[in-house]
């Protein structure tokens, strides 16, 4: 095994075993807070000396959660509640539940009813996030969240603690952005499966440790010579794309991920928190600066499609694979404008249905192989 492979295996081990990570934190006497997607200011949790762990559902079928949801709720939200009802989250000291889409909003109430023993922090981000009143509103809800965290941990969190946490998180975001670039340049060294594991592991690790490991990997990748890639290059877009069986199909067909517009991946670390004397304002401004996301209000409707076209051009990709989360209204509603923009820009696009329940990707395999054939014939 090369040094790169050894590091990648460590990332994969963590990404595939969040339960083991959780057990370890608990055995070390640390408190863990679960975080729903999207844009939770994890810095506040870190600053309070607790461990934030991402809750993005897991592979499988909802069973107990069906009692709480109509069938047309996305599997991400259904599987989060399923994990809670199965007792997988019982060792958490709290859960931050966000409300940025019409599925998350009712889910927050269902979660509260179903899991009344886990303290729930209700985080209602504003859609009008850019004007000063939006920033002030975000600051108010972040301050409230901080108060609730202080109650859980039993101590006050200082501005200095939060500033330090912001520094740690900015460094981690920077390392992840570097990694995405490096992985795009070295598909022969980083498979789609491994790329996903490296990024996913950060949801289960203390960020400074993830950054240390990732910086080491980035250094090794930067020192590796760039080899000619005998395959195709794409940009992926969607909410989440972490199923190794699916990603393996990309690898089998030599489809490299040159860049991504995935909420679970790059959308979550595009923007750093800028410096401000008041660290809560830093975090609120960071959220105000977020853009090009289906779940964020965008009066122009066009910024995300043009962002994805730029991603394709800048990463030297040949096409876009859209992983359409089943029953995700925000993604579905924005798809036509993306489709039209890509068509106009003559960028081939493949849309594939995706959710946590799919176990057989047979049809996706055929589509992906055909898409790779289309892209390579165009060369």
């Amino acid at each position, binding site marked *: 095994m090369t040094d790169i492979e050894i590091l990648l295996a460590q990332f994969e081990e963590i990404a595939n075993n969040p339960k083991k990570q959780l057990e370890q934190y608990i055995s070390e006497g640390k408190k863990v807070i679960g975080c729903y997607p999207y844009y939770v200011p994890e810095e506040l949790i870190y600053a309070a000396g607790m461990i934030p762990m991402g809750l993005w559902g897991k592979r499988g079928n909802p069973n107990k959660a069906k009692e709480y949801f109509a069938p047309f709720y996305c599997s991400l939200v259904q599987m989060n509640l399923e994990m809670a009802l199965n007792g997988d989250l019982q060792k958490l000291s709290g859960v931050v539940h966000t409300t940025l889409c019409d599925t998350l909003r009712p889910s927050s109430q269902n979660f509260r009813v179903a899991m009344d023993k886990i303290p729930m922090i209700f985080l209602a981000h504003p859609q009008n996030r850019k004007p000063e009143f939006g920033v002030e509103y975000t600051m108010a809800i972040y301050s409230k969240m901080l108060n609730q965290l202080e109650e859980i941990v039993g101590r006050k969190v200082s501005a200095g603690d939060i500033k330090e946490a912001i520094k740690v998180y900015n460094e981690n975001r920077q390392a992840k952005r570097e990694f995405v670039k490096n992985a795009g340049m070295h598909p022969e060294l980083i498979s789609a499966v491994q790329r996903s594991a490296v990024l996913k592991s950060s949801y289960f690790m203390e960020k400074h440790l993830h950054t240390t490991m990732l910086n080491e990997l980035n250094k090794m990748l930067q020192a590796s010579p760039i080899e000619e890639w005998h395959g195709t290059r794409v940009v992926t877009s969607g909410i989440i794309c972490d199923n190794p069986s699916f990603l393996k199909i990309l690898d089998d067909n030599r489809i490299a991920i040159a860049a991504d517009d995935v909420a679970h991946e790059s959308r979550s670390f595009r923007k750093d928190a800028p410096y401000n004397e008041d660290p809560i304002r830093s975090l609120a401004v960071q959220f105000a600066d977020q853009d090009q996301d289906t779940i964020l209000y965008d009066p122009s409707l066009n910024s995300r499609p043009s962002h994805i076209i730029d991603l394709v051009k800048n990463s030297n990709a040949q096409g876009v694979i859209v992983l359409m989360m089943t029953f995700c209204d925000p993604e579905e509603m924005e798809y036509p404008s993306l489709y039209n923009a890509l068509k106009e820009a003559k960028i*081939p696009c493949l849309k594939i249905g995706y959710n946590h329940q799919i176990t057989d990707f047979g*049809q996706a395999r055929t*589509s992906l192989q055909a898409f790779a*054939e289309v892209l390579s014939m165009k060369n």
Partner: protein
Amino acid sequence: MIDIYTMGIDVGSTTSKCLILKNGKEITGKSLVGVGAGTSGPERAIQSVLSSSKLELEDLDYIMSTGYGRHTIEIADSEMSELSCHARGAYFQFPNVRTIIDIGGQDAKVLHVGDDGMLVNFAMNDKCSAGTGRFLEVMARALEVNVEELASMSQLSKNNITISSTCTVFAESEVISQLAKNTDRCDIIKGIHRSIASRVGALARRNGVIDDVVMTGGVAKNRGVLHALEEELGHKIYTSELAQYNGALGAALFAYQKLSR
């Protein structure tokens, strides 16, 4: 000149098809077995086409597999997706083709072909079997008729009735309730064909329909579905006797191309 023989094997979900080409032009044999991936179908189809072509496996210069079970063919030199193969096969038969509607046993696809016969883009149905060959089989069973009889019976229809196009299970219960109301079976069958046309038509319109339109796959044999699709799309649709072998034909053509490179 030495003759070059290439074989295309299309292992579908419900049938296995084989076709041998001589010098990339002449079809020397073809075979079809009514079972597909994971069965003895592919092996039987291979043996059958070899014997009808009077060839041995060793005489073949290149074997290309395609279709749902393409990965299971050990003797294949390489494999390609059935979408690329359908594009190539249809272009060979109809050089003016730009849109291909392929309805197989368990899926439906609409392909766009460029001026050079290469696949440009495509749309596939989702997981539901509504609008596929399987849908017709389920309906034929409910109506107690053979699938082969559906086309001729639909021609006798006098009244328009609507059958759901969203779900095979719902459509089957609609058919049963129509039977309970003593609705003429010919009318029900025409409704079923229109139901398939509506679903596949929606798929086709996703990327646009460009003439010439060619229909391939097993369901192309059912002229009732073909005519319903023509009505739905407002385009003339061509098909051929080789409709069901189109994927295997495309695979044999790609195999020849591999050798000539």
